[in-house]
């Protein structure tokens, strides 16, 4: 594909992520933080997020697997995940976490289990999306182009 085409594809793709609610305005903040002195910032933060959520999802699975579920601990993990996802703009993950926390509050195990599934799904979805995004960016860079800044008309 030609450079220009890839660039356009990137732009469209990113827009769609916003439209579909995968990303929110906070992601724009992240993009703003990327500059010459910090050229891989977004990639780094998002990668950190991936690591983070893997760990947390693991903890959550274990916690919910216990005979006596420790809801406080559960809530604390979800809180963490909510914080991380919120900071990078992973909106759907964040929303799923909010729902999860509500079930923790009322100590509803079934509800929690469902939410855990939901959160997992959203995490992997957004990871997939990000990976596509990064791949497109890489392609652009490899072709000698620069990643277009996206003007989003919110």
């Amino acid at each position: 594909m030609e450079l220009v085409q890839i660039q356009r594809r990137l732009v469209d793709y990113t827009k769609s992520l916003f439209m579909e609610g995968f990303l929110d305005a906070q992601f724009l903040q992240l993009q703003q933080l990327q500059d010459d002195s910090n050229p891989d910032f977004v990639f780094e933060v998002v990668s950190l997020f991936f690591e983070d959520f893997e760990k947390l999802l693991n903890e959550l699975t274990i916690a919910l697997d216990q005979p006596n579920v420790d809801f406080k601990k559960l809530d604390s993990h979800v809180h963490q995940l909510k914080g991380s996802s919120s900071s990078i703009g992973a909106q759907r993950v964040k929303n799923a976490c909010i729902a999860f926390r509500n079930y923790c509050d009322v100590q509803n195990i079934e509800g929690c289990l469902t939410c855990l599934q939901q959160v997992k799904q959203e995490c992997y979805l957004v990871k997939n999306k990000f990976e596509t995004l990064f791949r497109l960016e890489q392609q652009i860079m490899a072709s000698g182009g620069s990643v277009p800044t996206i003007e989003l008309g919110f």
Partner: protein
Amino acid sequence: MRAKQMLATMSHEIRSPLSGVVSMAEILATTKLDREQRQLLGVMISSGDLVLQLINDILDLSKVIGDVLRIRQILTNLISNAIKFTHEGKVGVKLYVVPEPPFAKEGSQNGSAGSTANQSTTNVPKEETCTSTSQTSSDQRGFHGKKHEDSCQDRSQSERGTPVTNGTIDVTEEQAELPETTVWIRCDVYDTGIGIPENALPTLFKKYMQVSADHARKYGGTGLGLAICKQLVELMGGRLTVSSQVHCGSTFTFILPYKVSLSCDHSDDDLSDMDDHGATDDDATAGFFQFQPRTLGSLFSSNGSSRTQNLLAHNIGYVNSHKINGFSENCYSFPMSNGQTKEMDLVEDACSVAEALEISPEPESSFSHSPDHDNESAICRDEHHHNVVNAENRVSTRDVSSCSETSREVDVKVKITEPQLAAERQERSDSGFQSTLNSSREASNSISKPKILLVEDNKINVMVTRSMMKQLGHTIDVVNNGVEAVRAIQYHSYDLVLMDVCMPVMDGLQTTRLIRSFEETGNWDEAAKAGIEKPSPSSDSLQPDCTPPKRIPIIAMTANALSESADECSANGMDSFISKPVTFQKLKECLEQYLP
């Protein structure tokens, strides 16, 4: 001192509502009242007036006391410096407060050069002199290091012809009467060294002149020290003279005007170029010990003032731990009488003291030190004053003040600017004050930025926040929970704390409570109860104060959960909150609002 500060604060606080009462009473008096009512009202009004008057007087008094105390403070510092240097028996220092010298009255003092050249020659029998100059020196704005240099070379003269008042630091009466007044302080620094031959005196203060052609060979030096000192002193509106006897010793005297302002607002913000000292009866521009913090601050500060000051305080505190000759550093508390400015004045001293710390702390004398022993002046790398001083065997009291002000709570904006200073510090390999130097090195590295602490456990949030702060031009310290936050604050001074509310180990609310408790009580008892060890009373920690610690702005970072409501945050002592996720804009506004 605290009482006085409280008094001043309370006076302000009391005055407003009281004025309200009195005003209302007066308005009431204009309405229709019966005889009895009018009488009662009359009593109200006169009582109110009395109280208002009283409060005004108290405020005035605390101002005066403030000034007096400040002078006393300065002079005490001078003395402690003197003791420090004289304990080795190398030099003696004397300090006087003297009447206005003739040259001052003459009005026309043109620039440094000139007029005193002639006066530099005095060959009178060795006089006694008294104490510490260095502190005085270091207070001079713009001439921190140099002034030290200055103090090294000192003589008695200037007020030749004017009667000298010995050592009484009795400035109280003078000042109390005048809105602004100038105190003349004379300092003699003397030794019992090789002395200076009469024929050398006329050219003594000239650049590159030493006593003899081979002086440099014997003693080292470049011949610049005295010239610089003289220039400095004269720029500050004073005079520097010498008297000496060969084989007996030399005495260097300088006299400087110190201006005391008793006015409410310290209006001499204008540092007015020292070069401008000239002449003037205009005291405002004549060189005088610039103790107005803003002035000094404006000269030296870049950004991040308070951090500097805190670091300096750190340094000062460090020096505190050195006992010199049995003279134990006391913790001087600043008379907080009149709000900020006064405090700052004193801290000014502290800062200059701290600056003095930059300079070699050891008294210079060609006896005790080998030529390459550094007493490098922190002034200019270019001029090797120490050598000069050593060479000429003059009294050199370049000093590190052993001032022990803790200036934590004061917002002095002082920065040790000259890059040379910093470099000089690096070069210094001084032994005794190594750690001081180390901290001053720290200081020099981090001086200009405000110190910000981020308390956050989520790694991603940390990364994002840190990056945002970096874009805003700030570097931040990060800790991951409340306990670590308390520890950090025990050992460092911060200008701002961003506190996550929900954290493991100890949450933001409790952490804030503990910090506020420390600020209110001056101790870490509450934290100890919560299981956090108190800081060890070493030089590592911030000095346990005589002055109350400064209140740090603490900003909550909330995820907007109900449990993190704004009300609860402020109830626990937080100043404001930022809701997560943290954005650039939110941070920016916060910094603008809470950083000086």
